[in-house]
């Protein structure tokens, strides 16, 4: 496999369903980085991931993984990637030893030792059936399987959803270890923004099938700001300067996408730092402009 700069490169990706359209998506995940893919339920995250994995056919556009077209070089690509889903995709009557045997025939690069080491590290029993595993154990098992065949790109769909904070932190640490190798990359979809705030290098916001924002996480968070003001002060803010505003009993919270410019223009107002969650919240309600 060639050494490439982009782990994922999506151009003009479109997929139409009855009542939903994934519309002209452009997305780049540089090699060695972790991209957080954020959006509310039904925004198009899972559809995008399915298209990336070629589980469904696109209507238009191009998808390159590890520098190769995901349809033309499907099987070559799939040797070098690993997908982790929110639910365990293995039969519940299997155990870890049996899974290792099965996957050793599926992946040429399957490393039994790495898998066993990860099982040990995660305190996962080898002979217990998966049906008796907790949700956290199932997720750790999926990650152990994903990291045991030399994948260079991990694609995860809501992998940390429903897990307790301890397990989530453990898993996030493993992701960071995986990224120690600069050829490895992670594409992580989630609506738990705190996880992404901790580990993501880049973030992409998707809403109603469209990309709202994509870029470096720190730059995105730093460039946005939240103006907290009274109703009267709010009335003086130019609607073209903000994304949307939350009206409260005590005043208003206004999300601006250019904090520096807002600080200069509205020097009398307090502009606080913001979080990915708040950015998502204000962008999702951008059409209403004002909301409570």
């Amino acid at each position, binding site marked *: 496999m060639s050494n490439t700069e982009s782990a994922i490169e999506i151009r003009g990706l479109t997929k139409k369903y009855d009542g939903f359209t994934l519309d002209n998506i452009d997305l780049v995940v540089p090699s060695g980085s972790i991209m957080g893919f954020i959006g509310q339920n039904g925004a198009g995250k899972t559809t995008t991931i399915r298209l990336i*994995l*070629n*589980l*469904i*056919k696109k209507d238009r556009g191009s998808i390159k993984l590890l520098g190769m077209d995901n349809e033309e070089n499907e*099987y*070559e690509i*799939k*040797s070098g*990637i*690993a*997908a982790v*889903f929110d*639910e*365990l*995709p*293995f*039969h*519940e*009557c*299997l155990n870890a030893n*049996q899974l290792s*045997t*099965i*996957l*050793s*025939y*599926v*992946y*040429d690069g399957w490393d039994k030792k790495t898998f066993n080491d990860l099982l040990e590290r995660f305190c996962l029993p080898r002979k217990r059936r998966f049906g008796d595993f907790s949700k956290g154990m199932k997720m750790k098992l999926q990650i152990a399987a994903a990291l045991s065949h030399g994948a260079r790109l991990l694609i995860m769909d809501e992998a940390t959803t429903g897990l307790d904070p301890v397990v989530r932190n453990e898993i996030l640490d493993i992701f960071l270890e995986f990224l120690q190798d600069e050829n490895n990359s992670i594409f992580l979809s989630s609506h738990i923004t705190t996880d992404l705030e901790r580990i993501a290098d880049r973030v992409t916001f998707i809403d109603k099938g469209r990309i709202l924002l994509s870029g470096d996480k720190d730059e995105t968070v730093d460039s946005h700001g939240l103006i907290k003001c009274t109703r009267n002060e709010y009335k003086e803010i130019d609607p073209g300067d903000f994304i949307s505003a939350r009206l409260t009993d005590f005043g208003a919270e206004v999300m601006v996408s250019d904090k520096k410019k807002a600080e200069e223009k509205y020097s009398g107002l307090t502009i606080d730092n913001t979080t990915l969650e708040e950015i998502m919240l204000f962008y999702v309600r951008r059409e209403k402009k004002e909301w409570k």
Partner: protein
Amino acid sequence: MKGLLYKDLIISRRFFIIAFAYCFMGAFLFAMIRLSMICGNLADNTESTASLERNMYLLRYTPCAVFLITFFTQNSCYEEVISGWRRFSLTTPLRCGIIVREKMLFRVLVLTAVYAVCILYVILLSVIGGEIVTPGIIGNVTSIYLAILALTFTELTLSFSLKNKQMVITILFGSFSVISTVLIFLLMMKLKSMNNDPSDIDIFDVIRGEVLKIRKYVLPVTAGAAALTAVLCNFLSVKALERR
């Protein structure tokens, strides 16, 4: 493919145990009744023995029911969809053709194992009953084996092509109902054409007579049907999986 076969074997092993338990239970019951007819209480009762002879004919084919049990207890493709394995397998380097052909091969292996057991069963019963194993019985069991094989390939194709299990069951049972209705209609026509007193007609004799007439065609037709469905199953299932 080895890994997938190994997976299916592990998942299906409890079903095999059930199927073979049924088979051995049937063999045991048959042996008990047959031995009673030869040297037990039933040997002295000529009338009962005569009526049992016909039942024995049916009982001889009871292992064929195991084919059906095997068919319905096989690891369904929908279990793979429900467990998420199907989606996972499509994210691996496994080609669609391999996924389909493994499922076909696994079913052939399972049914062939059951077929071998059934043939052994027939031979064993003939030995117990002091009879000669006729090519007819082996031919009939083989025909049933091939017919179930064709049915299982059809079910496999539908499983890969249709969106849910209920649709597959509906289509299979719908087809079965249509075929049954046609056969019953043909039988009624035959009975009508005989112009005998209805009370004189032994319906089993009529069916047996009709079966005997077409007997020589059954084996080649079922073999052809199994081969044709295998080719179609491979082609259509791979297409369905690739289209997704």
